[in-house]
């Protein structure tokens, strides 16, 4: 295996894990990212075939996912429904929409510069990973140097306290789901460019992988604890290990077992590290 490939292959999962870790820090969960990836793939690919141009297609893809992100966010923060249920709802709705929109067929377009995004390298680093890195740096800045960042942690550990301090909790919660939707759209666009076509099932299963990556990266399921940087790293590691299983000659059944073991072992390691670094309460 080589580094270039690992970076290229983990780009989509890494950015999804980044978005998922933000959502999980606010004590939420976003099950819809996987099907949003598929939906964005279909929307973008469909519009790439139109005469409006590439940028319009990309923009529409981002807009679509953002719409569903805001939709989930508003229901979660205003009507106060559990995030798990709301995003499960949007997950099945968007998965269905993706299939309906393309009629079960893959979509394609006349080759243009959009196809080359996934092929180009910037000083040996895949452009896709560069894009992901930019988002990563932005999120790190957001987390550490803005009030939004501390509110994200605050909402996760004590939402009520924050509300009583006059923080617009509902707004920030909605924004987090919007961000998660946006990141899903970035992942969707990257995958679309990679496979040079729109595929209605391309995002299948990514939501669970992103949640696993975030959890193994130390993001707590009850919010308020963890660093998205580790979620990002664990996404890259998981991709490396799971890809590696196949290439080391494990047959698919053994790969399944291997992934199960990797997840459990990753979580176990995470527990041990947490115990070593923090005194037990």
């Amino acid at each position, binding site marked *: 295996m080589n580094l270039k490939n690992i970076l290229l292959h983990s780009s989509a999962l890494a950015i999804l894990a980044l978005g998922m870790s933000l959502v999980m820090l606010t004590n939420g969960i976003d099950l819809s990212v996987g099907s949003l990836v598929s939906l964005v793939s279909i929307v973008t690919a469909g519009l790439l075939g139109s005469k409006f141009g590439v940028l319009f297609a990309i923009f529409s893809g981002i807009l679509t996912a953002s719409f569903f992100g805001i939709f989930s966010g508003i229901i979660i923060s205003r009507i106060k429904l559990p995030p798990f*249920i709301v995003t499960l709802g949007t997950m099945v709705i968007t998965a269905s929409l993706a299939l309906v929109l393309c009629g*079960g067929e893959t979509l394609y377009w006349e080759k243009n510069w959009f196809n080359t995004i996934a092929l180009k390298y910037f000083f040996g680093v895949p452009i896709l990973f560069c894009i992901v890195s930019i988002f990563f740096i932005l999120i790190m800045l957001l987390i550490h140097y803005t009030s939004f960042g501390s509110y994200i942690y605050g909402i996760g550990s004590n939402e009520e306290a924050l509300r009583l301090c006059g923080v617009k909790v509902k707004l920030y919660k909605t924004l987090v789901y919007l961000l998660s939707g946006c990141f899903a759209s970035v992942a969707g666009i990257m995958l679309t460019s990679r496979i040079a076509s729109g595929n209605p099932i391309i995002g299948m299963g990514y939501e669970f992988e992103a949640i696993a990556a975030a959890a193994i990266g130390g993001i707590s399921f009850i919010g308020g604890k963890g660093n998205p940087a580790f979620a990002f790293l664990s996404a890259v590691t998981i991709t490396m290990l799971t890809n590696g299983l196949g290439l080391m000659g494990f047959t698919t059944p*053994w790969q399944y077992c291997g992934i*199960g073991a990797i997840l459990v072992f990753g979580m176990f390691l995470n*527990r041990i590290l947490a115990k070593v670094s923090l005194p037990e309460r």
Partner: protein
Amino acid sequence: MRRNDILLRFALLIILAILIFLVNPNFGKPANLINILRQGALLYILAIGMTIVILTGGIDLSNGAVLALSSCVAAIAMERGLPIMVGIIISLAIGMICGFVNGVLVTQVKIPPFITTFAMMYFARGLAYIFSHGRIIYGFEKSFRFIGTGNIFGIPMPVIFSLLLLFIFYIVLEYTSFGVNIYAVGSNSESSRLVGINVKKVRIIAYLLSGFLSAFAGLIYTARLNAAEPVVGASFPLDAIAAVIIGGTSIVGGEGNLFGSAIGVLICTVIINGMNLMGISSLWQQFVIGSIILIIITTQTYTKSAKINIPILRSRKIESFEK
């Protein structure tokens, strides 16, 4: 769960059924109604396990894979000529072992249920492929197939089994200490610990039961289909979760019941059946189910916060509190 929540769901089920019936009278045929029950039975058995696990505040993403693993191993055992009873016992034992491992990882190693059962999903799926060598095991004895295809007084066996399990687990949840402990642990695990409930034991048993029920569903599945395959059930966990949620069980635990889940399963089955009958493209199935999840939970939240006052439902509520 409050009575008006169940009524709300039951009303939705009836309205759905009437709407489909008006569009397509074939829906009302007795044979079709029995179909719905039979198709819902498998999902319902899984949903019982899922309800119990969700009541304790957990989740089980592994039930589909455990179903595949246990049914494949049982099928191999029967193929090799072992008696049917032995096959059945092996299958149930495997289901319980998988559930036990889930429970131990969740309670002792403190890995979140989501990740534990997600990992178990991969692990069990992998083992199912390994044991079956990826092939479909086909053809079983008549006596075994009876549990999937037989009828008693015209009622299909899967339906009888699911009703029986509903009865047993309703008693367990409502009338035994274990049932009360399940609700207590899911509602407030710290309080439960302080009054001396063995929280870990309750959780482990909940996962164990879910594994057991997955294996049980696997047996019925194998008997009904006359085949055991390692690929089956990838969509079962989400189907069961959706049905349980539509049935009104709270995803954070401690609230909900098996009747709600039964209605949830029926709502999902009726939708799919109706869409099949009306010839609506199946691409839309998930869309409808997703919308129903959001609509029903939103409605429930609103009626609960009493912003909308439905007279019938409210009077019921007061009645139920009189001693």
